[in-house]
């Protein structure tokens, strides 16, 4: 078995514990079903391209992007825990290179991101099945968003985990960053109608782009703007991935 596959196996085993899985499913479920239906009275429908989505369908599709982002915290947590519990050095004195380690983290977050997207799609499907328009190019859009989004947010989590020295610092920074990403985005509410500068801030946030691409895939609403958002996602993901790889390869032992 290839060393990277062995490390991915190990990463999945140590990360996918009951607590994490419950968090990954229960938390979005609460949002989809509780917030989704509770806010329907306030937000009747959300215009999306040439469609009008009801709010539960809007938030359920937003939760796919949100969950992809959330699941990539795993990347930061793996690196953080490996440094804290001595496994980083132990792996590097084993039959692995730093490249194996970095690649295994990328594959792990890609897999977790895809599983996460699939889970929320399955759970949220009853809410958006009326509006859904899956076809041969929309499904790849969702997969693209899952993988690119995982790499992007996984890289951010990795950068944070390589730069910080204390557990408290790691938790504070990662929670603050991901709180900003979650709530200053179009995952929970549309940008239209939001006051300035909030609606502009939405588009400084990669989660907005990720969620827009997921929705374009789910509801068959591809446009030039979504195409631009995809390019932005790829460029930002590549830049952050390069930075995180460099930091990880220079991490002192």
């Amino acid at each position: 078995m290839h060393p990277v596959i062995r490390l991915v196996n190990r990463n999945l085993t140590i990360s996918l514990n009951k607590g994490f899985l419950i968090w990954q499913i229960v938390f979005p479920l609460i949002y989809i079903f509780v917030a989704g239906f509770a806010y329907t009275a306030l937000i009747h429908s959300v215009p999306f391209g040439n469609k009008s989505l009801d709010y539960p369908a809007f938030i359920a599709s937003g939760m796919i992007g949100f969950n992809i982002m959330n699941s990539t915290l795993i990347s930061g947590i793996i690196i953080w825990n490996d440094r804290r519990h001595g496994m980083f050095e132990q792996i590097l004195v084993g039959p692995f290179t730093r490249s194996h380690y970095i690649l295994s983290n990328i594959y792990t977050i890609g897999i977790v991101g895809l599983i996460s997207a699939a889970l929320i799609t399955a759970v949220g499907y009853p809410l958006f099945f009326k509006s859904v328009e899956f076809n041969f190019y929309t499904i790849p859009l969702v997969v693209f968003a899952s993988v690119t989004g995982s790499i992007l947010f996984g890289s951010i989590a990795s950068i944070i985990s390589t730069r910080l020295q204390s557990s408290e610092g790691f938790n504070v920074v990662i929670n603050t960053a991901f709180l900003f990403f979650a709530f200053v985005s179009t995952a929970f509410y549309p940008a239209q109608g939001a006051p300035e500068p909030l609606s502009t801030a939405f588009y400084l946030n990669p989660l907005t782009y990720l969620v827009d691409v997921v929705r374009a895939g789910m509801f068959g609403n591809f446009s030039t703007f979504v195409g631009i958002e995809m390019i932005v996602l790829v460029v930002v993901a590549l830049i952050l991935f390069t930075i995180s790889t460099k930091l990880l390869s220079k991490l002192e032992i």
Partner: protein
Amino acid sequence: MAVDGIDLSVNSGKIFGFLGPNGAGKTTTIKLLTTLIAPTSGTINILGMDAIRRPLDVRKKIGVVLQQPSYEPTLSVEKSLEKYGMMWNVERKTRKDRVEELLSAFDLEEIRKIKNDDLSIGQRRRVQVAREFMHDMELLFLDEPTVGLDPSARRGLLDFIKKKVKEGLTIFFTTHILNEAEYLCDEVAIINKGKIIAIDTPNELKNKFGREKTIKIRIPETKKDVQGLLIDVKDYEIDFNSGTNITIRSNDSEEVLLKILQILTANNISIENLSVMPTTLEEIFLTVVKNSNASSN
């Protein structure tokens, strides 16, 4: 700690002890030998391979127990052994057998289902050392493996290591506990301030540096002035704390002993007890490091 001009050669199938005071360069040397860091100059040859050019090939054939703890907090003891075997590409059936063998050898059966995070420091250390035997290797680096272990676990580990060496494993072993090195090692190097200051078998080191022997003589209480009788004898101490104890510390301790025995016999003073303290590796270590520090100052 930087290391400088270290020239070591370790024979296969032997236990090589690497000793030194805190900050002497032991861990740096282990990091160099295990390819965790690269040297600024020089060569490192491990198992016939250039460790600077082929670090991965070297790492595939060695095992390393680092000084710092390393563990997967969320995994149980048996799962962490099993997963470590998987990481080393050990076949599933072999993994299963080895997990059972190591749980038993390291007395971990009772805690097999407990998560690493919930173990004591000593238990975690036992798991860390046991885990390294999940895979095959030709050379094992043990950096202070007995830290945190109770005496029986420590002895169990040392005996397990001895057994593995009999089966052909080579071990590079660092410790602060010098009677462990004495018990275990075929050859010993002492490092101080980044340089090797002595290297030989424990017995040869004792012959080279351990000429001073300690002899203790205990005599019953007497009204005679023992100190006065021994006034012409050098290199001895006497104390009257609990009986009369004469301690000889000399490079010529046999001669001093002879003189004292003659005086005691001539004065009809009997001997209650006489013991010769063998030179320990600890004494050698202290002497060698002290000499090295004195010469570098």
